[in-house]
């Protein structure tokens, strides 16, 4: 296959950035999208030019480190597939592709296609856990959990934290990411004690990180490589409302970096 690529190049957060044209020749349909970029990068290095920076690690769709926007779609055209699992057979000979980083003020660009997603870590730090001390747990079978509840929690827990939901959202909202964690823990009996505080703290942190609000476009669900449902956002909103009414104290978010 022969492809024309327009790849976003940006030296750093303060650089303006631009598209750079590349041609990919002899692309095999069995290559992954990132392997196609590997080949270009190896050629760039050998020619003494700066290779394209992009984040990636496991290359099996689970670590959540990779992600780029291909022709306007986060992680590219294939449903429920991370960029590393996207293969070139999804494209046609002669296709022209525009490749961009996640774009959101909550995800400042580091270089080229690589962005800073530490905001997600700070949202989890705000309350995305059960406060259980190591060694203090009761026997694992002490609390039976109905299979349906456990499976539902697992549907939410499958989130890989890649940020495609933010990249796909016209408001750059992180609602799907936050809702997935809020729902995962809020559905399980172990997460009940901190449930009201957790949702308020995490939502406050999401707002502080400059992510937008949800206005039900559902682009996040369409882009999510793990197929996480926006019904979790509705669930989070219910929990949040209940908590706002029932709790007397305010929560404070830590300042964004």
């Amino acid at each position, binding site marked *: 296959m022969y492809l024309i690529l327009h790849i976003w190049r940006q030296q750093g957060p303060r650089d303006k950035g631009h598209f750079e044209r590349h041609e990919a020749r002899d692309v095999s349909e069995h290559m992954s999208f990132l392997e196609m970029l590997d080949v270009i990068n190896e050629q760039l290095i050998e020619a003494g030019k700066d290779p394209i920076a992009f984040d990636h690690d496991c290359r099996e769709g689970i670590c959540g480190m990779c992600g780029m926007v291909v022709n306007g779609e986060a992680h590219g055209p294939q449903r429920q597939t991370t960029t590393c699992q996207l293969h070139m057979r999804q494209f046609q000979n002669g296709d022209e592709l525009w490749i961009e980083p996640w774009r959101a003020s909550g995800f400042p660009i580091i270089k080229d296609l690589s962005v800073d997603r530490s905001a997600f870590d700070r949202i989890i730090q*705000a309350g995305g856990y059960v406060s259980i001390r190591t060694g203090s747990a009761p026997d694992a*079978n002490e609390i039976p959990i109905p299979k349906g509840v456990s499976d539902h929690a697992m549907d939410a827990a499958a989130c890989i934290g890649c940020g495609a939901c933010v990249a796909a959202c016209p408001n750059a909202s992180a609602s799907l990411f936050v809702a997935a964690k809020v729902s995962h823990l809020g559905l399980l009996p172990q997460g009940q004690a901190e449930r009201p505080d957790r949702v308020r703290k995490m939502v406050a942190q999401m707002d502080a990180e400059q992510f937008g609000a949800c206005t039900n476009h559902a682009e996040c669900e369409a882009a999510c490589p793990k197929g996480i449902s926006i019904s979790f956002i509705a669930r989070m909103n219910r929990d949040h409302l209940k908590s706002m009414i029932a709790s007397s104290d305010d929560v404070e978010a830590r300042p964004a970096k």
Partner: protein
Amino acid sequence: MNLDAREPSGPIEDRWTQHKASSKLVAPANRRKYKVIVVGTGLAGGAAAATLGELGYKVQCFCFQDSPRRAHSIAAQGGINAAKNYQNDGDSVYRLFYDTVKGGDFRSRESNVYRLSELSVSIIDQAVAQGVPFAREYGGLLANRSFGGAQVSRTFYARGQTGQQLLLGAYSALARQIEAGTVDMHPRTEMLDLIVVDGKARGIVTRHLVTGKVEAHVADVVILCTGGYGNVFFLSTNAQGSNCTAAWRAHRRGALFANPCYTQIHPTCIPQSGSYQSKLTLMSESLRNDGRVWVPRNEEDVGKDPTKIPEQDRYYYLEERYPAFGNLVPRDVASRNALYVTNDGLGIGPEVDGERRGVYLDFADAINRLGEQTIRERYGNLFEMYERITGDSPYQTPMRIYPATHYTMGGLWVDYNLMSTIDGLFVGGEANFSDHGANRLGASALMQGLADGYFVLPFTIGNYLGTERNFDGVSEDHPDVRAAVDDVNSRISSLLSAPKAKHAPQWFHRKLGSIIWHQCGMSRNGEGLSQAIDDIRELREQFHREVKVTGGEGEFNQTLERAGRVADFMELGELMCRDALDRAESCGGHFREEHQTEDGEAARRDDEFSYVAAWEFSGDPAQPTLHKEPLTFEYVKPVQRSYK
């Protein structure tokens, strides 16, 4: 050097309890005076950092990924073993211990393995309390499955994402401590050297991967949980960033490296499709429960559509050679036999570099017997993953599989406290050598990482600090600290200025991987290993002469990162081959062609090789010094494995 494993004595079931009872503690008010560095945030590192922070130590934690949640523990699919005996099928701590020692082909330390089995039950409790959504039965209790041919169902799982869920559990505990201010987290920061002052590990030198800043961090204790070195093979199931640099640099500073030749090659991975390939993807071992492995009997059929090859022309080699276990023989046996049939010219799939390296895993019989729906329920997500990568549907045509490097049992030598041969340097998870012997059983890696992280290290670190007590202040200006920083800076400069810069680091990595895969992979012999040692040395010289790294040191430079990691793999690769050459026996994942039984199976030589090979760096990568820790088996008596 005296390799004292500091194993407690007495009945094996009391050793860990006794050891804890006789160890020193650090009072709560004193803990905040001690600084602990944890490198790596996988199951072992994440769990250790969270637990030590919770105990009140001042923890500095480092990972090279952009977030601690991305460590490669996340990719483990199958499950985690625990001797809960929830299935009432006769499991016990002792049985898990027995299976692990035997599965490791009698090359691990009994006391450590027993402790691992004992702690396995607490791990499940801890994970469930954190909110890990393990699979459940309709009654609401935890579900289990039998894994990797085990006779009991002791494996806990969360769909095909057990590693992810356990890691997110540890990550959430870590996040809680970061919020509480007990752990200072440094993502996108790579350890490039260990600081040793007066014989004790006192800190690390790191490079920030975005700014390029090289700096020293001093502490009272350093813990490495930096994973395995499977990427020495270039192609493996490891993440792209997985590397040996932290462990190798510690080795160069005096930590002995144990059993580097023990690597695990997993039989069911998706074969390479071209020379551009960057990694290999594992398909869960559970597929062998229903799939039948075969290749064409006749060489002229290897390029044909497999569904058109008649039954009598198919060679179900595992079923024919191992009638008792058939397709469920252990990983090493399945892998080696795939190698043999492809060496005989019967491999299938696309030709890569002139060879067809693949065998079929066929579900047609299972679909006929059980119906497509049942197969879809059991393996639907795996079949989808396979189709996404290869474009073929396993419902219609047999899967193609081939072995790939998956796990490394070797690692830094540690005693019972998980302390290396450098005082104050502790090693957990895949980075140490301790529990799996020459072969790791399925669903045991997650168990070991979490046992080390949650339950062993937090305790043994307290013992070390409580025993040593007073640490001289070491500042960033200490001459040994500055020397380590200077070393790192000069290594970086030389990578950036190779005299005849020509090839990208990955070019060399690919060459190194090819040497090791062919000579120190599933099947090894003396001649090949000697040749590999020479070839690697030559390649290493060429690397330092011709590696081309664009850009500078003070910036986000992924080529420079890669070059540093490849440089260390070049040295480790040679040690691996040397260890494999020295170990003139076959055991577990280490198969020496000169040492096999009449049936072609691995022949151990217990009288001569029942020891841990721990290598000391002498200053020259070509002249390491071998030290031996003899292994004794008081409980599980060595026997020869047989799967006929």
